[in-house]
């Protein structure tokens, strides 16, 4: 006699597109993005309306709400440009100009990015070096750590002009002073993260290497440094974003000729709000891209080290 058993399907039926979108991050992030764009549009209409209504009243014309919305989203110097105006401007200045042109956003981004990157590299090295010192020399922790922390309580906006002016007086202009401001912002998260990371080996791991009578140098390279790698990447993600802020802030006080900061400044001199916003959005996108790039390197490295499946 045969027994029949109702078979459960072994494979789940393919989920609908909506289910699949919301399984990961894509769905939720898209919803927030759409919400953000909607608020932006509403804000643009609201903030640009008084100017448009003024125009209508001077011309003594009849207008409808539809006219008003249409006009507020296509002003030449709006209080708040609409997202599509920013996108059009970005398209023109990123893809529409030769990258050597002074009007190309790619050129300005490169100027900012190069000093941010230099500052990031110096800041990371400096931050790492300070952390190594603090972890290995007790007196350095006591003497250096309070200074490291208080260095970040000084507003960078107040400090940046001083650095630019002082360095300018001794003949340093352009890339290096901006990079130094980036360094100033960068080293801090690296120091804090690396001090924590270099101290992260547990007592058992430390005892083990002690039983092999390893030198300080061997303990550093075989235990402390590998343990600190996950901490390092977390710090680097904070540092790269900070380095971009530093470079942009460094371009402002002296009215630099080039760079995203210079674009922001020039835009505000001439009331070119669309130019300001497109520089702003570009800066945000570049920062996000840099953080994502480090996140990608992090995943590859940790996977290779066996620290992440």
């Amino acid at each position, binding site marked *: 006699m045969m027994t029949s058993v109702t078979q459960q399907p072994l494979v789940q039926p393919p989920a609908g597109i909506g289910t699949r979108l919301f399984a990961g991050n894509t769905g939720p992030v898209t919803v927030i993005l759409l919400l953000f764009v909607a608020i932006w549009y509403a804000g643009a209409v609201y903030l640009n309306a008084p100017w448009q209504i003024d125009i209508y009243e001077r011309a003594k014309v009849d207008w409808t709400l539809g006219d008003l919305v249409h006009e507020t989203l296509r002003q030449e110097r709006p209080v708040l440009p609409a997202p599509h105006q920013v996108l059009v401007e970005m398209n023109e200045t990123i893809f529409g100009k030769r990258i050597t042109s002074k009007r190309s956003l790619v050129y300005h981004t490169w100027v900012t990015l190069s000093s941010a990157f230099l500052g990031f590299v110096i800041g990371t090295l400096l931050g790492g070096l300070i952390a190594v010192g603090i972890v290995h020399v007790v007196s350095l922790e006591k003497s250096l750590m309070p200074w490291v922390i208080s260095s970040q309580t000084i507003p960078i906006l107040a400090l940046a002009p001083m650095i630019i002016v002082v360095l300018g007086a001794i003949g340093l202009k352009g890339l290096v002073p901006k990079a130094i401001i980036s360094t100033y912002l960068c080293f801090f998260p690296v120091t804090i993260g690396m001090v924590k990371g270099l101290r992260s080996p547990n007592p*058992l*791991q430390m*005892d*083990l290497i*002690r*039983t*092999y009578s390893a030198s300080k140098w061997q303990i550093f390279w*075989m235990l402390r440094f590998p343990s600190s790698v996950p901490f390092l990447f977390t710090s680097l993600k904070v540092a790269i974003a900070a380095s971009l802020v530093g470079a942009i802030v460094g371009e402002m006080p002296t009215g630099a000729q080039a760079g995203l900061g210079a674009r922001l400044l020039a835009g505000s001199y001439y009331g070119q709000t669309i130019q300001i916003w497109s520089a702003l959005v570009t800066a945000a996108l570049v920062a996000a891209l840099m953080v994502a790039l480090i996140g990608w390197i992090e995943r590859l490295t940790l996977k290779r080290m*066996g620290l992440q499946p």
Partner: protein
Amino acid sequence: MPETTKRNVVTCEDLSLTFETADGPVFALSEINLQVSQGEFVSFIGPSGCGKTTLLRTIADLEKSTSGSILVNGVTPEAARMNRDYGYVFQASALYPWRTIENNVALPLEIMGLAKAERDARVAKNLALVDLLGFENKFPWQLSGGMQQRVSIARALCLEPELLLMDEPFGALDEIVRDHLNEQLLRLWNKTNKTVIFVTHSIPEAVFLSTKIVVMSPRPGRIIDVIDCGFARDRTLEFRESPEFLEVAHRVREGLRAGHSYDD
């Protein structure tokens, strides 16, 4: 078995260790007198807080005694540690998660500065000894707890030490894995004639493995009994049901009971 005078591997005379804490001194070890000779398998057994781990750590120079004398291989513990005279197996495997199994076992050899070919040969030999060939390129998280602990034993063995210090190495493992590893350890000791000092709080484990059982008691940490058990070196797990085994186990239990004050 031919009885010859054997070299003392560990000698403690009136060894004491006091930890100064905020609540006053803690007498972790008090006037410990102990000899461990070459080839012995000595277990320290006692309730927690009796100083058994502290005594092992003092032999390994991971703690410093406050008075008395201690010699390891005829020199101070620090000199013995510098000579890499012992291999230490901890309660947990203490594998470095970023190193593969083979590189974890090779860690002490890299620190010693051995050439790659020699390292590879020793790693292969010792992984075979703990029955882990084929796992060389796995990372620690890919292995079970029992396998990880076997890796840590291979790591201690690849230093080729005459003295093996083991601190409750199987304490975190389940009974079945533990039995299996006990048998493997016994076979390994029988084959290599190393000296083993083994910390445990399991009576059957201590009786099954040891040639000498050191019973300890807390507050202050001291030795209350030393029991010699000269069982055949090729005993198997079934031995644990024999009258001789039960007799020694009984004596250990009595010793532990006598040394333990239950009123605190």
